[in-house]
């Protein structure tokens, strides 16, 4: 079900154009990843999706109420605030309130019935593993806990869509992974997620849809497969772990249609010009030259690589 639709949306601040002609559809249950370099317009896009910003041109429509026709998200934000959760890049809670006080404070402001609010808080405390820290001042929590509390504050009213801006920024890899796992769980519970991040490997693992923002434009958006498709033909990589004679292997490889050979310490990465020709030629050469390989892997292009390709192209 379509929740939010962006139609040729542009946004500029004064003379500075930040986003141009962005069109995308966010459906219920999606886990969108908005990726891009710093300053590419990710946060602006998020704020447009959250209804916080009004587009300079184009439309951002919401369809939270099935019975009604899509309406301008920004203009009707006051009516649908309880449907949206927002977790900005930096923690957005009261450091001088305890964990429980923060959750209660934000939950009560959404006018939820007491029992529902208590249930929400209970389940969130469990999901965020904050049980045992209820009465601790938020400022004394660890970085990971603070981020979890922040997300919990954004979820306390059970929104249908949660917008997160760089939820893993400034966290160590373990905490990044924890947070992403937690968000996956949230998504599985039916909450649509839109996450902006530049941790592409994490995004690749959890997101089912991705929008690549570069130079104020969404260069590519859709499912990972859809994004990857244009790059599949020429963007496979072949990783070889050579046997005894590494030098001979490299000299043989140079006769094949290969764009680039990267010699790493214990393996060789090949960027073929034509994957089919290269693989055929490689297998023939191995047989003919009697070369021995310890390992051979053929990889699809990663999101990181696709992103690099796109940003280099544009």
């Amino acid at each position: 079900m379509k929740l939010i639709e962006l139609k040729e949306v542009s946004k500029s601040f004064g003379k500075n154009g930040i986003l141009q002609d962005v069109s995308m559809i966010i459906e219920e249950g999606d886990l969108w990843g908005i990726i891009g370099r710093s300053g590419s317009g990710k946060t602006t896009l998020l704020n447009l999706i959250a209804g916080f910003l009004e587009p300079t041109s184009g439309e951002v429509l919401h369809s939270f109420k099935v019975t009604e026709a899509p309406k301008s998200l920004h203009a009707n934000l006051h009516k649908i605030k309880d449907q949206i959760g927002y977790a900005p890049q930096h923690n957005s809670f009261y450091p001088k309130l305890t964990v429980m006080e923060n959750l209660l404070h934000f939950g009560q402001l959404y006018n939820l019935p007491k029992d529902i609010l208590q249930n929400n808080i209970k389940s969130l405390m469990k999901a965020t593993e904050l049980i045992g820290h209820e009465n601790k001042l938020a400022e004394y929590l660890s970085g990971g806990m603070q981020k979890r509390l922040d997300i919990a504050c954004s979820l306390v009213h059970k929104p249908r869509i949660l917008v997160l801006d760089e939820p893993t920024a400034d966290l160590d890899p373990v905490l990044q992974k924890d947070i992403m796992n937690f968000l996956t769980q949230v998504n599985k519970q039916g909450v649509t997620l839109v996450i902006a991040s530049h941790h592409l490997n994490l995004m690749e693992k959890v997101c089912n849809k991705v929008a690549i923002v570069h130079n104020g434009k969404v260069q590519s958006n859709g499912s990972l497969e859809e994004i990857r498709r244009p790059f599949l033909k020429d963007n496979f990589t072949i990783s070889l772990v050579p046997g005894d004679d590494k030098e001979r292997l490299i000299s043989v490889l140079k006769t094949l249609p290969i764009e680039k050979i990267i010699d790493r310490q214990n393996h060789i990465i090949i960027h073929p010009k034509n994957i089919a020709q290269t693989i055929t030629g490689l297998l023939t050469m191995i047989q003919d030259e009697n070369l021995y390989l310890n390992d051979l892997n053929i990889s699809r292009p990663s999101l990181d690589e696709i992103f690099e390709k796109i940003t280099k192209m544009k």
Partner: protein
Amino acid sequence: MKTLWLLTKKNLKLLVRSKTSALIVLFAPLFIILLLGLSYSSSSNYGLNIGIYASSFTGDVESLMSSLQEQEFTIVKYETSIEDCVEDIQGGYIHTCVSLPESLAVESNEQKEVLFYVDPSKINLVWVVQETLGEKFNLKSQEISKELSGNLLSAVSDAKSKLEEQGTQLSSAKEKSTAASSTAQEISQQLNSLDLTVPTSSYDQQLIITFKDTVSPKIKSSLSEVKDAVQTVQASDLADKSAILSSLSGVENKLKSLDTLIAGGAVVNGTNTTTVPSSGFLGTLALLEEELVGTKTKLTAAATAVGSTSSGLSSATENLQQSVSALENAQQRVTEMKANFDAQKVTDAKVLSAPLITKIETVGQKSSYLNYMFPALLVLVVMFTSLLLGTTLVMMEKNSPAFFRNYFLPLRKGTFVMSTYLTTLVITSVQILVILAVSAVFLKDNMVQLLPVAGVLLLSSSVFSFMGMGIGYAFRSEETGTLASISAGSLLLFVSGIVLPIETISPTIRSIASFNPFVISESIIREVFLFNAGFSGVWSGLATLAGYAVGLFTIILIAEYLVHKHFISGFMKSRHLKHRQQEKRDKNNV
């Protein structure tokens, strides 16, 4: 030292680059000084509204009023009673009431009293009133004193000229009187030298002379005849010779006794002995004769003396007549001078030196200075507390990490403003309660007024809270916001009449300053607290404060709306600016 300078330079850069910080840190004091300079550099006179009451507005009273008006005092006439004027002082419309006598002309030895009615709670205004009006009345008093002294001095001068004129005449009269005096003295001496002692004996001189001439010779002849008879008898042989001789002897003795009496000596008459003067009767007669001769001589000498003094007495009489004439003239002049002096109605030195005296009466019940200062102190505390609380709360919210999240809460924009206001109000209410509770210990007489005072303070607190909140929305950092609040409070305080009387500032700023919420609040509390004013007396002030509160609330709502609208824009702008700067740096590094 280098490090210290580097750090200082960094601090200065940070201050200057933060526009609001630079504005408030560098320019707020300058702005305050400029404003105060404009306010107090005025050379014009005080903007005092003076109420004048007199039972009759005579010419000199009107003249005094005109001279006060020339000094740009606003004069309000009260013709019915001074109480009307006093009520207006309590209402704050009039600064001072002056009760004047019917006329300022001093016509007796009683000083004219001018009463000033001032509001003692405006302590710093009292001295201005004393200084300005006292000076004016002192001038008037000096003017009257000068006129009275002039009158007296002209009388004295007139007397002097008259005395000088009479001086020569009196000198001449003196000389003539001296001459008359010496003449009279001489006459007196001459008369004194006359022996006009009158003999005390009384006698018939002729009889004595006759007696002397006839009796004594007859006695002598009788005695001689007796002696002859004796001799004749003795020579005869008569039988009774002895008897005849005895009788003749008896006659002889009696004649001798008589002769002795006349010539002097003791005379025995039978058993009685009569004593006559030793000189005898004839001696006495001779003495009398001598006395009479002497008396005649004396009287002759007296007649001569009287004759000689007659001319002297005539001269003295003439002199004395001239003196009398001069003295009569002098007496007339003295009478004139007396009349002139009597015409001077004011002769008392105290009245002459200060014909007008001024007295200061305080309006309202006599209270301690704490009572007088109490309204200002209360508003001062409430103002700074509310201003700083308003600013701090807004700053706290703005700078709180949760600020961003609040935009996604399903709340009206005004709710946050109201919550901030309510927080301020709760804290201020507690403070007001504490202050009033503590004050109640010292101000037992005014306990009843404390409740309405608390109400007015809450309204004032609302205005100052909104003002503080407005400042909070206008500034970014808590420090500059706080500084701006303190500056705003100081400015309101400086043009409130607490530090310096508001009446002393320039008219333009004064007219603006009269809208100062501090002034309005303080005025209302003073009226309620000191003069027991009811709602009807202070409703306009309360309405103004309420108007301020509503106006400021509206402005804050607009500010909140604008902040909301531009928050993200500003946030995004700065974010993209940072990224562009970072990209530039990266390119340069490459």
